[in-house]
């Protein structure tokens, strides 16, 4: 982990933490309510997972709802059938995530050998199968209506069973609401999202991430220097599925209900929309995209019946005019200037020191690495 710190990791860690802590209050100031803030963080976990697959591995999955809803349904069913008296949040969420991961490994093993459109269509096929099975298996899943209510899961820590609906102590913050707006749900989700974010950052900057990028950039070459592209893709797919399942499980438990829409094609599409608008190949893009769209959805859909039309227009506009997404474009234009002035990364320094050995062939011109993916952090 020391490497991550070396290239801006500490600053990233601090800024992200600050952002997550301050978010609900700033959100309140623009008319967002705390419950929505929690939901945004939860769905963002899935978006981050989705982005690992789309942005860094270059695979567009059109069926991620099967992990999201799948994780949710499994978590809900575990609560209802196996722990109705002692609803344990850890177990439910863990179970949901595990189920989603297993599904991702199965689907992934089959799908990752296919290219482009065929990959997208296969993920779509599986997701649709699961959708219709869930819809039809009314006895278990409640069919179209889904599962309306299930026991409130408690979080056991040591001797305590914590009800996550508990609010923080009251403390008035003026236009930023009141501290008691925040429930422990938000705290838990914030911690989980933070860990996921830092972990994703480390992963994408690791050797694993480097190889994923290489495979995305030129798969033929990658195979012929000895990388097993399918294996890497499968790993990315599994991680992506796991995170999405985690997100779905949390969301289901938070909402207290789950319906068949959570495995539907619109849900799959939503991850695509959030990630593209926020910016693929960025870490914060998926979170930003999720936040912006979910916020607009909540605020606008109350007043405008045609909210989804606007969403579609924004989506196409971003694809055509801002191919790096909102965060990506900001990063490119403004932070690119800052990156040039910043000191070179330790890897570049290392390379330079090797070249500076007696008999080394080059003088390196400067430390800054080339290529958009290599721009240092967000």
């Amino acid at each position, binding site marked *: 982990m020391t490497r991550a710190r070396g290239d801006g990791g500490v600053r990233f860690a601090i800024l992200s933490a600050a952002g997550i802590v301050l978010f609900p209050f700033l959100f309140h100031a623009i008319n967002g309510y705390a419950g929505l803030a929690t939901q945004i963080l939860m769905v963002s976990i899935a978006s981050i997972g989705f982005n690992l697959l789309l942005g860094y591995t270059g695979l567009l999955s059109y069926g991620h709802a099967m992990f999201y809803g799948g994780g949710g349904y499994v978590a809900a069913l575990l609560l209802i059938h196996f722990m109705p008296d002692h609803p344990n949040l850890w177990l439910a969420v863990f179970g949901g995530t595990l189920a989603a991961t297993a599904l991702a490994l199965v689907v992934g093993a089959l799908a990752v050998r296919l290219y482009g459109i065929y990959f997208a269509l296969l993920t779509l096929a599986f997701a649709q199968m699961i959708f219709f099975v869930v819809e039809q298996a009314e006895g278990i899943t409640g069919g179209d209506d889904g599962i309306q209510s299930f026991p409130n899961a408690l979080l056991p820590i040591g001797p305590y069973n914590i009800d996550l609906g508990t609010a923080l102590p009251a403390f008035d913050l003026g236009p930023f609401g009141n501290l008691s707006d925040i429930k422990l749900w938000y705290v838990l989700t914030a911690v989980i999202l933070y860990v996921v974010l830092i972990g994703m950052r480390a992963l994408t900057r690791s050797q694993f991430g480097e190889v994923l990028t290489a495979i995305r950039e030129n798969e033929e070459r990658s195979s012929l220097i000895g990388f097993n592209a399918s294996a890497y893709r499968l790993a990315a797919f599994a991680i992506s599925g796991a995170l999405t399942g985690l997100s779905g499980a949390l969301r289901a438990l938070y909402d207290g209900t789950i319906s068949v829409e959570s495995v539907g094609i619109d849900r799959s599409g939503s991850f695509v929309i959030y990630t593209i608008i926020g910016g693929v190949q960025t870490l914060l893009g998926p979170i930003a995209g999720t936040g912006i769209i979910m916020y607009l959805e909540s605020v606008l859909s109350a007043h405008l*019946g045609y909210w989804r*039309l606007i969403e579609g227009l924004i989506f196409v506009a971003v694809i055509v005019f801002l191919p790096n997404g909102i965060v990506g474009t900001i990063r490119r234009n403004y932070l690119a200037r800052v990156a040039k002035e910043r000191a070179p990364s330790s890897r570049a320094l290392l390379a330079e020191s090797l070249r500076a050995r007696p008999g080394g062939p080059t003088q390196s011109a400067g430390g800054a690495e080339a290529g958009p993916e290599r721009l240092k952090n967000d």
Partner: protein
Amino acid sequence: MVALSQALLNGLVLGLIYVAIAVGLTIVFGTLRLVNFAHGAFYAIGAYVGLVVAQQAGLWWGFLAAPIAVALFAVVLDRVLLRPFYGKDATSQILVTFGIALIVEETLRLIFGSTTQQYPMPAALTTSVSLGAFVYPAYRLLFAGFVIVMLVLVWLFIERTDYGLIVRAGVRDRTMVQLLGGNIRQASTIVFALGAAIAGLVGAAASPIYSIAPGTGFAFLVPSFVVVVVGGLGSFWGAVLGGILIGELQSLTTLVFAPGANVIIYLCMALVLLLRPQGLLGESEVIRQ
């Protein structure tokens, strides 16, 4: 026996709708290398335009207006938005066409509302015909015949005209087509508009059977992708074969085990992708590692 025959006929009708949509999808992919997730939008626009015109001027004018309107829309789409995406990586294409599909669907919802609409049908066509042991709606039979005629015409276009030559050649070898010269751009636009028009025409013609809602386009598009995969991306006859197969499969499964009807077609798609990804009649291009 009666139920079976009806199911078979229903399957044929449904299958022909899939064929019509799939043919457009597949020839566009074969020629332009464009994966068009917005193809369902053509169907939906056709249905609604047909509806509006039919309400004003009668059924047949509706059927005439639909493909024309959709073709125009397709040309505009081609010129304004989609051209830079031809031949690009599949992901970009899926994304932008998906966005367009979303916009179209929501615009239709805005204009027409979410409730399903019924097509105004002249009384003469709502009758049923006696087919031996059972009766069957006359319109459906008419529709089936109509689509078959349309497909024959499209086939003739592909096989006998210069533009069609580009469709056939394009499926085999895109660079070859460019080297051969010819007005590729014009041909491409025409092929794209043709595929769209077919979908639009069928959208209008099928609406009396299946009714119209903003989501109908996408609802028919997704199974049409199944058809295209099963039949083979780029193959006309693959689309025909695949469409009939899938339509019948869906219909017969509904008869035997209704909850499985939708699951089974996606299972088919998954199996084909895994075992024979080029589909039944498709060219074996580089699909997998």
